[in-house]
């Protein structure tokens, strides 16, 4: 496992039939780049955690070899005037490759989040499965979220999906927790933790 705690540029190639876990969680604000190439049947698990500061991240995953797999789970938690800019590229250049990305964000204060995602499926990458999801929870009324997922698919034997959601905590869930005698504040915290639990 590789633990990356400073924001800078990283490049990795995962060799054929190897697997790797990469955790990117910078301790300070900054701009970073993660460039990962996967050879045949290589697999990679990427975990992102962005909080306490302003972060900019470009994540580029290139599935070069057949049967390569990448799984990305990310979370950003922002408060005050913090901003996060994330752009991700899931580039499928070979057949039978899979990528699955889920990035969630909790926005408090007057924070801003910008997510730009791209799935690209080349003309040789048949039998590709690609998924991309970005979900934002706006906890404060001054927070702002922007989500721009995109898909470019050049062949037909594929299953691709992307989705984005921006919203507030579910009122019914809040009500349920409160009806069990828990204060609103605490109920909100519980639901926020539950929202994050899926990716951390």
């Amino acid at each position: 496992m590789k633990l990356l705690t400073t924001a800078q540029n990283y490049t990795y190639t995962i060799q054929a039939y190897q697997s790797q876990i990469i955790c990117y969680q910078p301790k300070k604000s900054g701009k970073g780049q993660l460039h990962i190439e996967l050879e045949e049947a290589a697999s990679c698990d990427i975990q992102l955690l962005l909080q306490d500061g302003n972060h900019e991240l470009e994540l580029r995953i290139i599935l070069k070899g057949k049967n390569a797999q990448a799984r990305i789970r990310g979370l950003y938690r922002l408060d005050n005037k913090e901003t996060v800019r994330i752009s991700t590229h899931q580039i499928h250049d070979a057949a039978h490759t899979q990528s699955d990305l889920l990035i969630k964000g909790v926005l408090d204060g007057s924070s801003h989040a910008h997510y730009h995602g791209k799935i690209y499926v080349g003309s040789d990458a048949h039998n590709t499965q690609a998924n991309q999801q970005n979900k934002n929870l706006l906890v404060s009324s001054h927070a702002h979220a922007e989500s721009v997922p995109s898909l470019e698919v050049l062949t037909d034997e594929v299953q691709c999906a992307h989705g984005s959601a921006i919203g507030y905590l579910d009122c019914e869930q809040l009500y349920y927790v409160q009806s069990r005698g828990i204060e609103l504040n605490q109920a909100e915290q519980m639901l926020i933790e539950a929202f994050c639990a899926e990716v951390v």
Partner: protein
Amino acid sequence: MKLVFKTGKGINSDIVRQISAQKNEPDWMLQFRLRALAIFELKPMPEWGADLSELDPNDIYYYLKPLDEQHTSWDKVPDTIKATFDSLGIPQAEQKFLAGVGAQYESEVIYKRLKKKWADQGVIFTDMSTGLSDYPELIQKYFATIIPPHDNKFAALNSAVWSGGSFVYVPKGVHIDMPLQAYFRINAPSMGQFERTLIIAEPGSSVHYVEGCSAPIYRKNSLHSAVVELIALPGSHIRYTTIQNWSNNVYNLVTKRAMAYKNSKVEWIDGNFGSKKTMKYPCVILKEPGAQAQIISIAVAGKDQHQDAGAKVIHLAPRTKSNIVSKSISKDGGRSSYRGLLKIIKGAKESVSRVQCDALLLDPHSRSDTYPTVQVSEQQVDVGHEASVSKVSDEQLFYLMSRGITEGAARALMVNGFIDAFVKELPMEYAVEINRLIAHEMEGSIG
């Protein structure tokens, strides 16, 4: 047929003056056209979306008097288009009309009867030039208020050289029970090159406007650039249905936008077949509380075609709702793209929006793209976007074929199922034609 009036190729202020003089327009409209021309010349060609580098605005006739559009003879209409007419089951007289070589006289009688019925209710349904001369105060109040000439290069071009298009005015509380169809207006060409349409629905009224048809529209002119403005005043309901099947030499660059006031509802039902390049993003601005928008579109891109279509919704007020469903089909190396914008400003509390884009790829050479943008600055909202890209499933195909259905028919059946969300919103006769059109297109692609 006698050639009545035609401007030279290209565009300049003399041509704009000629068009305006030919139509006996008031001076304010001439000044508006000239201002728009200046804007058109200043704006660069858009560099995003479909590739327009082959389009030369100086190689186009900008105005042909209506009669002139029918000078082509039936013999000159390409055989492929005639074949499509046959498989759609369209009668000969109607075929000639659709190919731009004759007028559809049979409908004249029906139209006159309907026109009287509508006129008794105070409804105005006429072409834009007649609207300008008969109802100048209405036009002056609303014209170009939703899409000003500086909106984009092609809106500016349309503002400078527009001719044709519909003007619809529905008085307070009037519900028009049958769809207004553009081709009823046979006194002017229903589908010109630079048509300009304006629909005003007064409070509490409702109207359904339909333009186009599923049969291919053969035009020698290669640029079609329309502007459509809808104004839905409080509590009104406007539904605007378009089905267009341009011949594949046409650049179809259209600006469509609606302003929705309190508790009103605007629906765009938009079908894009054919054309060489299409750039079309119907938009609804939800300006006041309780307004609703629905945009349902389908794009089919075949060989050498790029359909760059989508939808835009801007939530400016609380409790506004929007729903976007976009289906696209790419085949024979065609490319279809969904490009959308969903924006919720701060203060538009309790707004709800759903966006769903589905793409179907029919062969390995075709391409599908999805470029949605979601911007939210308000906390109490519920926004969701979903997109998927897939092919016709082999298992489903196998199942249908095992029941004795041929491969072509099975594919057509599945494609029809895929676009069902769109087809079920259409008036019945159009729905039947679309199903036949899909079957026809599928036959071609299986070969």
